Each structure stands twice: as structure tokens, then as C-alpha cells.
């Protein structure tokens, strides 16, 4: 069945990029049981409302069943959900919020206290005591923070800059093998947006014009600690993406190349014949998990699934998402020369993308991953 892998797949992928309606009416991935460890079988397509109830029921148990939550989160938090649902799901899934409901309040306050200690130990030390290396890290963080711009006004606010500076600096010092690497500043932003939305009970789309001065300082303290711990969990297993030589990323780029060669050899040939190297365009996809390629609402949807995949290594799955994403543009790319492709891939026309289009990518990626894993010989 895999003899001409590109044939069957490209039919659904070749939808013109602007036709969100078409993509949205495509396969609805989440509803049909794609979760990696899901046990229940897929029923008829579930309405968002049913899904909301399932989230509610999942949280209401004495101890949240992480397998059940994983399956739910994998297919995305519905738009209709209360903003706190996503924040809670992410925090549970990342092992930050305790699964036992009666331990959640104390668990969180303990973690937040711990974080305050970290701030004292690592950040509030007198500047003279900082090593050259620490100063260099801080310098890099400070020049990157004002250049962190995922489209929300509040990321330009000095108070938010302080939050990012502390979390990133502490993370870097506690992860000396990698230290701070440019791009990690991008990776903390979805947590900040989702947790802010949860506390303020607003949709993340309604936060674009938010003024930080409107947010109570207690809330800011909480989201700072929560974002710090969740970022740490998220990056815990992918340290080698950011260590010297970035071997984790090199590996993913290589794998992407193999997969694309398998599923769309014509595109692969077109890229290589034009002198395009995978590293040239996909390094950033790996380093920032496609964050620079999509608007925040899409990144957040992508992260629902990645956080659900976190335990089994979401970076593995991410490569398949990248492959599907690249092949999606094959019709356009095949018409272009080297320079046109480079410029096109630097700024994909994705500004208008909706989360539904991400779901299509995820569904395709899931199918692709299953096919490759069930017959690994295709990769050799």
C-alpha cells in the first residue's frame, strides 16, 4: 500500500493554502482516536460540546487519568472551552499540576514558592558575583527579549520583559549543558499567553491588545512560575537540540530529508537539483518547532498535540509534521527556482491560517508516522 506513498496523500494535501474551508472540512483528526496510547476505539464524530464534557469529566475525577487526558488533548482543546481548560490540561500533561485533585492547590503553591527561591538564588544575587559566562547569557537574553514578538502588544511591556528575563536566565543556569539559546525565548511565549488567558478568563485571541498594567501582580507572579516550570518540562527531553553543535536538530533535519524523499521524491529532487539544502530552510522549523511559521493561535493548537505527545517524545512526531507541511507546498515549490523557494519558505503565506488547518497537518502527520513505524524498513 505504500508503494506510491505520495499519490494517495497528496490529494488531500494539495489543497490550495488559502482555502481554509476546504482544509477544515478535511479529515477531523482528533475525533478519531489518534492518541498514541488511546485505548478506546473511535465512535462517530464527536461534537465540540461532547468533547468539552469529556474534558470536564476528566478533570472531575479524584485523580486525573493522564492517558485519557492525553487522548483528549491530542485532538485539541475545542474553541468553545473555557480558557482555563487548556492551561490545566497542559499543566497536568507536563506533570506540573498534580493529578490528584486534592493535592493540586498545595502542589502549585509549593512549586511557586520553589520558583521564588530560584529567583533569589540565581537572579537576585548581586551582579558582581556573576561569572563572565552568566553575564554573557544575560546579555543575550536581554537583546532577544525586545525582539520576541509573537504578535501581542504586551510582549513589548517592561514588566513582561522582566518575567521573561528571569525565567530564561534561571532556566539557562539550571541547564548548563545548553545554556540559553536564541529561540528558547520564542518557546516560552505560548505558555505565557495560555496561562494569562486562563487567569484573565479571556480567549487568547482577545489578548492582542492587553495592557500588562491591567493584570494583577499576583497573577503575573503565578504565570511566571507556571511558565518557568512548564518550559522546563517541555525542554527536559530535548536538551541536545540546544547543546554544542545542536546534534538533536541535525538529526531531525536528516530524518526530515529521508521522509520527504520517501513520500514525495519529485519534490525532493526538485529541491536538491536546485541546490537547496534541507538545513537551509528546516533548521528554524526544528529549533523553534514551527513557531515562526504560524500565528500564535495555530501554534497553541499545535502545542495541544505536542504536549500530549511529550511523554513519548514530541520531537519525533514533529519531524512528520514538518514533512507534511513541506509537501503541502509542493505544487508551489515545484514551480520555483532556488531563490524563489528560499524567499517563499522564509515567509510562508500562513498568516490567515486557522487551527483547523493545523489539525489537518497533524492528522496527516499521524498517518504518516504510523505508516513509517509499522514498516521501518522503508527508512533504511
Amino acid at each position, binding site marked *: 500500500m505504500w508503494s506510491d506513498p505520495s499519490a494517495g496523500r497528496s490529494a488531500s494535501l494539495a489543497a490550495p493554502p488559502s482555502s481554509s474551508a476546504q482544509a477544515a472540512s478535511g479529515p477531523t483528526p482528533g475525533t478519531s482516536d489518534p492518541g498514541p496510547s488511546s485505548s478506546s476505539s473511535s465512535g462517530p464524530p464527536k461534537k465540540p460540546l461532547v468533547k468539552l464534557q469529556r474534558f470536564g469529566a476528566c478533570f472531575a475525577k479524584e485523580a486525573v487519568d493522564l492517558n485519557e487526558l492525553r487522548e483528549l488533548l491530542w485532538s485539541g482543546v475545542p474553541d468553545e472551552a473555557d480558557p482555563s481548560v487548556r492551561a490545566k490540561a497542559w499543566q497536568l500533561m507536563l506533570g506540573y499540576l498534580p493529578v490528584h485533585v486534592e493535592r493540586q492547590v498545595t502542589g502549585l503553591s509549593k512549586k511557586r514558592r520553589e520558583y521564588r527561591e530560584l529567583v533569589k538564588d540565581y537572579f537576585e544575587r548581586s551582579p558582581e558575583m556573576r561569572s563572565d559566562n552568566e553575564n554573557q547569557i544575560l546579555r*543575550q537574553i536581554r*537583546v*532577544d527579549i*525586545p*525582539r*520576541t*514578538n509573537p504578535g501581542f502588544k504586551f510582549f*513589548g511591556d517592561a514588566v513582561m520583559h522582566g518575567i521573561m528575563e528571569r525565567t530564561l536566565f534561571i532556566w539557562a543556569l539550571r541547564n548548563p549543558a545548553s*545554556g540559553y*539559546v*536564541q*529561540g528558547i525565548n*520564542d518557546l516560552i511565549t505560548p505558555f505565557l499567553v495560555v496561562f494569562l488567558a486562563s487567569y484573565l478568563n479571556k480567549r487568547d485571541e482577545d489578548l492582542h491588545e492587553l495592557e500588562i498594567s491591567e493584570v494583577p501582580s499576583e497573577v503575573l507572579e503565578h504565570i511566571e512560575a507556571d511558565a518557568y516550570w512548564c518550559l522546563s518540562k517541555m525542554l527536559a527531553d530535548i536538551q541536545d537540540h*540546544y547543546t*554544542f*553543535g*545542536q546534534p538533536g536538530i541535525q538529526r531531525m533535519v536528516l530524518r526530515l530529508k529521508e521522509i520527504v524523499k520517501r513520500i514525495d521524491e519529485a519534490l525532493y529532487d526538485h529541491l536538491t*537539483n*536546485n*541546490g537547496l539544502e534541507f*538545513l*537551509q530552510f528546516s*533548521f*528554524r522549523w526544528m*529549533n*523553534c518547532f514551527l513557531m*515562526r511559521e504560524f500565528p500564535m493561535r495555530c501554534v497553541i493548537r499545535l502545542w495541544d498535540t505536542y504536549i500530549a505527545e511529550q511523554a513519548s517524545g514530541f520531537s519525533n512526531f514533529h519531524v512528520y509534521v514538518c514533512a507534511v507541511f513541506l509537501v503541502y507546498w509542493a505544487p508551489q515549490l515545484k514551480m520555483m*527556482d*532556488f*531563490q*524563489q523557494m*528560499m*524567499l517563499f519558505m*522564509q515567509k510562508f503565506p500562513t498568516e490567515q491560517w486557522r487551527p483547523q488547518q493545523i489539525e489537518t497537518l497533524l492528522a496527516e502527520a499521524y498517518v504518516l508516522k504510523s505508516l513509517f513505524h509499522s514498516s521501518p524498513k522503508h527508512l533504511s
Partner: protein
Amino acid sequence: MDAYDYLFKFILIGDSAVGKSCILTSLIENKFKKGSSHTIGVEFGSKIINVSGKRVKLQIWDTAGQERYRSVTRSYYRGAAGALIVYDITNRDTYHHLINWLADARTLARADISIIAVGNKSDLKDKRAVTFLEASRCAQENEILFLETSALTGEGVEEVFVKVAKMILNKIEDGMQHIEEGLGYHGLFSGLIDPATMMSGVHAGARSLLNEASPAEPASRCISC
């Protein structure tokens, strides 16, 4: 018309946040983008400039400044005919690192690479920490070109690229610059030449390979950008 006489590949190197990406944006879009993000890995830009009556197409790789990215950015040196080493005139550290960047370029790039030191943010006069004179002496000692720019006002930006391109053109006239005469994937017979051999960073454009007098029309059909 997109036809050109030569294609030069350039790299932009230098410490993080000195303004490399802003210089590239200023060259290509003639504007200063506030709030643009830092570079992850490399970014790419292209522009055709006029130099001594020739149309020169520049393909420019803008690299990320952070040390950790060197393993990725280093691979862009070998294909380059020109290098801009950028520092920030308000930050002495970035100036001191110029020497390291130069050493990188000398070891990793071709021997005939043309290099310019670029002191950026010249609009920030009050914060100046590196004088024009010392930088220009340093450049002279190291036998590289030197100019100051402001990506914010646009001052000096195009001149920097023109200056390096001129130097390369002079080398071509003196027969000191290696030129890839193949038409390659930018020329008429697309795909005939293995891109891996196109490492010189300088290619003759289709216009020069056709008769100079002939209209640029056939070339523009093949060299679309």
C-alpha cells in the same frame, strides 16, 4: 528586468544584535523594521545593484550571531565571494569580536573572499563607543574595507554592498577572482551543472554570456526572481 551580469554570494556575520538583519532589510526593502525577530540559523535575501555599469545580483545569507549557531552558519562561508563583518558602534565588545569573525572568514571562506568591516548604528551618536578612526585603522591593518552604516536611517547601507561588489569586480578584471562560467541553475541550461561545484560565490550572469548587445529578454525569461 531581472537580467544581470554577475551573481555574487555574500554573507553577513558578526555578533548578535549588531543589526545584520536590519541592514539586509534596509538594503532590500529600503526601510527599517522595528520589532523584527532575531535570526534563527540563517536568513536569505537578494537584490540587483548597479556597480560600475554592471548589473550585479547579490544573494545574501544573513547569519545568526549567537555562538551556538556557528555549527550551522559556518557552512555558508565557503560559497561566499563577499563578507560583511558587522559590529555595533555603541558596543565595544562587538567591535573586539571583529577579529574573531575575521579569523573565521579567513579560515572557512575562499582565499579570494572580499571583506568589509561595518560599524552599524551610526545614528546613535551619543552612545558611540568605537571611533571611526580606530576602526578604520584596524581595517587597514587587516587589509579589509571599512564603512559605517545606519540601518535605521539607511545611511551607508547600499554603499557597503556596492563597495564590496566593486572590489570583486576589480579582482575579476585583474584576473584574480575565480569565476564560475557555467550557466548552472541560474542560467539558460538549468540543471546541467552540479550545484556542488558552484562554490566560487561568483557566477557570470546570463546577460554576459549572451551577446552584450542582445536584449535582456531571453535572460529574463530564465532568470526569474
